């Protein structure tokens, strides 16, 4: 199998800084750089993860276990303090849908803007535009400013843009709870379809039943360490303490 994602021994420390002023930094410099300017904690500790092409992996763990941080390292938003991350092909994140949406622009403008942010070219967006609108069930509201959208419409459009980016590696962070139940089912069906096409999928979710339905492999994180890596049902069982 070809490797799609290769994470080798990455560690990440976060700085807990209370204030952000030049004054404090200056005082610290004057005092001869004594002590630490800030508290630190490990978000990820020597994490290894290899994902092959076409695998569907769920990152599981409690709040603050480092799941989202790991996902951000794979997408390139964060750079590890030590260790390496390498990916093959285009990686796109369905990370917090709607991050690139602007409230004062119409749905149409937002599709183009968000599509481009997620790495689509102008031609790709044009080609897939109708399909995006159809999937989102937005209809005639596409030329309305998104601030007038209901929260469901907003999420549906954002999700629709994201699934149409067509990357080789999909990163999905807590977004499966979009819209009403019929739409949620449609999203899950779409994600399963992508997985069936042989796309690599990395999902972060707290909905254990849901991820068991989508993913084959589960990786459990606890305080920045990988504590389990194996079949999804065992991972879920471990997390539930069974």
């Amino acid at each position, binding site marked *: 199998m*070809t*490797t799609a994602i*290769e994470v080798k021994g990455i560690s990440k420390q*976060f*700085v807990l800084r209370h204030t*952000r*002023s*030049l004054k404090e*930094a200056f005082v610290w410099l004057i005092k001869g750089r004594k002590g630490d300017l800030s508290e630190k904690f490990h978000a990820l500790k020597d994490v290894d993860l290899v994902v092959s*092409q076409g695998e569907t992996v769920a990152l599981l763990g409690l709040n603050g276990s480092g799941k989202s941080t790991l996902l*951000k*390292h*794979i*997408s*390139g*938003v*964060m*750079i590890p303090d030590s260790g*390496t*991350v*390498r*990916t*093959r*092909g*285009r*990686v796109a*994140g369905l*990370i*917090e849908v709607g*991050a*690139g949406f*602007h409230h*004062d*622009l119409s749905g149409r*403008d937002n599709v*183009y*803007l968000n599509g*481009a*942010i*997620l*790495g689509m*070219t*102008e031609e790709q967006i044009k080609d897939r535009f109708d399909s995006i609108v159809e999937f989102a069930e937005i209809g005639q509201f596409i030329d309305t400013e998104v601030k007038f959208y209901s929260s469901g419409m907003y999420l549906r459009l954002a999700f629709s843009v994201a699934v149409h980016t067509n990357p*080789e590696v999909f990163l999905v962070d807590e977004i499966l709870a979009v819209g009403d139940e019929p739409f949620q089912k449609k999203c899950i069906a779409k994600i399963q379809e992508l997985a069936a096409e*042989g796309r690599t999928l990395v999902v972060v979710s707290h909905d254990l039943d849901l991820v068991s339905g989508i993913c084959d492999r589960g990786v459990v994180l606890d305080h920045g360490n990988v504590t389990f890596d194996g079949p999804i049902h065992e991972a879920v069982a471990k997390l539930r303490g069974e």
Partner: protein
Amino acid sequence: MADSAQSELQTPGRGNGLRDVYGSRFLLKLLVRKELKVRYRGSVLGIVWSYVKPGVQFIVFYVALGVFLGLEQSPTNRGGLPNYAIYLFSGIILINFFTEALGNASRSIVGNGGLIKKIYLPRQLFPVASVWVSAVHFFPQLLILAVACLFTGWHPSLIQVLAAVAGFIIVTLLATGLGLLFGAANVYFRDSENFVDMLLMIATWASPVMYSWTMVQHKLGETWYALYQVNPMTIAVETFHYAFWLPTTDGSAGIPPHLLSLWIPVGLLVSAGVLLWGQMTFRRLEGRFAQEL
């Protein structure tokens, strides 16, 4: 998936700096369009504000400085500058461009923090888009200036027009370079946007926008005047005076010596150096943007 199997494993999140901006020019275009659309949302006058604000600023300065302080040449005031209105306006629009570009570029990274924290994209896009938007606001003002010049008998030579283009390039490079620098610094220390505000206030007065360069030369002497001249904004403003103001006068007032042969190349070099510095600093700092924002 055939093509992906052939492609190599790559490290995500390591950009190529400004080269990536060129690669994402479609996104840059959309970001600029978004800014232009969003800027004057819900206002009746809309884009007209881009004309009204510099227009009013010009009138205030012209009355206060030109008339009250006597910088305008008139039959009773022989020591003033001829066509002071043109002199003032050609400098003001360039300073406005610089002020808007640098001010917005410095805030652009923090302002787009929500996006930068979640999705990887070339972050240099945001300062560059800010400068671009400011350039779009600059051109209508340039048009007004050109029309005003034509009414006062403007007859520029090709060299003079090229000098103005060089001046524009100097300001663009400088604003982009400083915008990258302070935009990145602003993520770590929010003091930097206040520092930029102060810098911009100084920039307006540290170039011969309101007054004549000869006054500086008389007060400072040659050595300090040379230092004053090294400021790329000073050089850029002088190129605009050379291109727009000088051809409307009888040419007796003159421009600083060696403007074309020495100072324009110096200005271009200094600005390019600042851009390089800004770009290097930005790339060093951007790795930790997501966690610091």
